[in-house]
């Protein structure tokens, strides 16, 4: 359990965080989300004491982080940064087990652990273990970085915008991987992001932070359905899937009413997406007119809506 008790951070007169309290439960995947400059990275860095708060304390399992020996503290948790931050002079295997090397674990054991972890993050160990980071793609590098964070079997992993530099497809894959690993190992994960969609997808619970204040803490459903402040409402508005309206869809795709037998009645675009596909086509009835469209047309339309969201 991680507890922030009345934590504050000031640089001169500039207030980064003010009197912030937060509890993160064991085994949960907690996402801190907020716009850049909101103080979320400062919060995560306080746990491994890269940043020292100017007031308040942080406790892990009831013990103040200040009282823990620094190497012990840092070796007991994993850390994944935005860019992969793999060490270019070390092989993938050496990168993954560098903390174990510090802990004087034998070479053989380290090698075994690296092999195991590469498998866990979906990379073939025999192919990757002796390669250098420069020979890996961005996605592969980030997988290795996650494997590295798992090396010491930590109870806690800190992730600071870990997927932000990846393209949408890779990001989605990595999110899936993270969820799978969390399921598998049940460690506590504190994940920082500015992407509310990422927060919705990953978080068991989400903390929304803005300008140094923690605005709301809750499950994704709570946050999206019962936002407590206008900022939270606005921030998550675009996270709701925006599919447009059916008339919108019909005009955009220039669909013509057709004479079709027995087709299902629909009210929204979401209904359309759930229709059974017959020979690559979807048929529906809307306001007493029947329409038919290719699946590809629908996908094209949805893709456009996605772009409008930005």
């Amino acid at each position: 359990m991680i507890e922030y008790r009345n934590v504050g951070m000031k640089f001169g007169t500039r207030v980064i965080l003010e009197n912030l309290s937060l509890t993160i439960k064991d085994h949960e995947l907690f996402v801190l989300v907020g716009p850049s400059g909101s103080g979320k990275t400062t919060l995560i860095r306080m746990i491994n004491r890269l940043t020292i708060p100017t007031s308040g304390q942080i406790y892990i399992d009831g013990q103040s982080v200040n009282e823990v020996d620094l190497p012990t503290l840092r070796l007991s948790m994993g850390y994944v940064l935005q860019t992969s931050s793999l060490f270019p002079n070390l092989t993938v295997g050496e990168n993954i087990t560098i903390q174990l090397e510090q802990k004087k674990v034998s070479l053989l054991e380290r090698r075994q652990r690296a092999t195991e972890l590469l498998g866990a993050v979906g990379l073939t160990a025999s192919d990757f273990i002796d390669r250098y980071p420069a020979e890996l793609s961005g996605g592969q590098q980030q997988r290795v970085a996650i494997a590295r964070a798992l090396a010491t079997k930590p109870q806690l992993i800190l992730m600071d915008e870990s997927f932000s530099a990846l393209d949408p497809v890779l990001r989605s894959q990595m999110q899936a991987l993270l969820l799978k690993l969390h399921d598998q190992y049940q460690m506590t994960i504190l994940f920082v992001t500015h992407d509310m969609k990422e927060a919705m997808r990953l978080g068991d619970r989400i903390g929304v932070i803005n300008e140094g204040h923690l605005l709301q803490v809750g499950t994704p459903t709570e946050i999206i359905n019962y936002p407590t402040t206008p900022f939270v409402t606005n921030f998550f508005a675009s996270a709701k899937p925006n599919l447009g309206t059916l008339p919108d869809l019909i005009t955009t795709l220039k669909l013509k009413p057709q004479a079709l037998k027995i087709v299902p009645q629909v009210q929204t675009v979401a209904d359309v997406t759930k229709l059974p596909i017959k020979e690559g086509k979807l048929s529906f009835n809307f306001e007493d007119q029947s329409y038919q469209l290719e699946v590809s047309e629908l996908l094209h339309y949805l893709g456009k809506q996605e772009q409008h969201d930005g």
Partner: protein
Amino acid sequence: MDKLLQMIINQHHQLLVALGQHLALSFMALLIAALIAIPLAMIFKDHRRLGEIALQVAGVFQTIPSLALLGLLIPLVGIGNPPALIALVAYAIMPIYQNTYTGLTTIDPNLEEAAIAMGLSRWMRLRRLELPMALPLIFSGIRIALVMTIGTATLAALIGAGGLGTYIVLGIEQNNNQELLIGAVFSAILALVFSVLLKVMGKSKRNLKIGFGLILLACIGWGGQKTYQHFFAQPQAEIVIAGKMGSEPEILINMYKELIQAKDPSIKIVLKPNFGGTTFLYQALKRNQIDIYPEFTGTVLKAFAKAKTTPQNPQAAYRKAATYLKTQQLTYLKPMAYQNGYDLAVTPEVANQYSLKTISDLASVSDQLTAAFDPDFSHQKDGYLGLKSAYHLQIGSVRSLEPSLRYQAIAQKRVQIVDGYTTDPEIRQFHLVVLKDDQHFFPPYQGAPLMKTSFAKQHPTVVKQLNKLSGRITMAEMQTMNYRVTVKHEKAKTVARQYLLKHHLISAKQK
């Protein structure tokens, strides 16, 4: 080119010794510099202000001209290897330090943070991450230092540390392009070869390990040999005889050795030919680093005693020099016959045409002739300026030429008169005619062995033997011997021995 190859083959032993000295000196300097610079950069990387200051200090060392630094070090640590090593280390520190420091301080801060956040210790970060990441830069720093060190180490010859510089200094002194080429080409090759080797070594971890292994082996081997010499080889009382640059001192010190050993073969004598310039030798003698070296009366008076005027009479000049040296606790033995002072020489054609024998003869015809003089000679009161008024010379045109180029100019008949030293081998090589200084304008330069008074008292045999040369060796004889060594590449030892035998100063049955 053939001559060059021939010379390399003839002198391959000396050349190897010089190469060895050069390499040993350069590598020692490089190793010490690296052992200072790299840890320093490792300490200062976390104290940026101090780091920058250290960079400035190292830069200041870099700006001191190497010759000046060597000069400054002599009074502190004497001559030979120590000052050369110190100077080379001082120069090599800067590039190694700068590159190591830059390498360590320009590592991606993201990586540094990741390493810190993961709880890696300082030593672990340094050993596993920072040093390996900075390695390419460190290596390029070492390579820069190496090339520089091998180049600068040629100057070590000037202060008696030997090496390839000996060839360069000799080549310049004797106007011998082959010697110059040997020195320059070999040091260039040395620099290139080791630069490439270092580059290969920095390529991969495996090469690095092999490289370090070889260096370690070399160090152990070298150290072992030195230790053996130090503890097991019987140290013997020995006499060190040194000479200035050039063939003439080398012939003379070989004669000294033959003469001393003719009387007492058990005395161990070490010869240090081409040991350095006048001041270096004088200082070395005073600091007991050498025991004997041949010096000229005129040089003693001008360079050491700083006399404003020098007596025209050779005997008077010798007495004055010996008297001064006595005040310095030095003993100056009796001089040889020949004079090695300034002279004027003309081409045989001109000498015939105007029947020139003396400088006075030159006065009436001088306005029709052209001369090439050493820049010093043409502007000094005891050179051409004084000569002009003493003999009422009106030489048509006078050019200042570098000493090495003067003889070339007269050989190609571009000029008819040159200045020079009376025993220069070129006089014989180009069949020049030396004009007699009939008014005794030039100060007398007679050579004689110089040693510490305490040494002279302890070694009466040496004094007695060396005095056998007093009044010996005429100017023509010395010219011929110089010619044989410099132009014909005969060994100084052979030439010296033959002279002594011919004049019954030693007997043939002794080896």
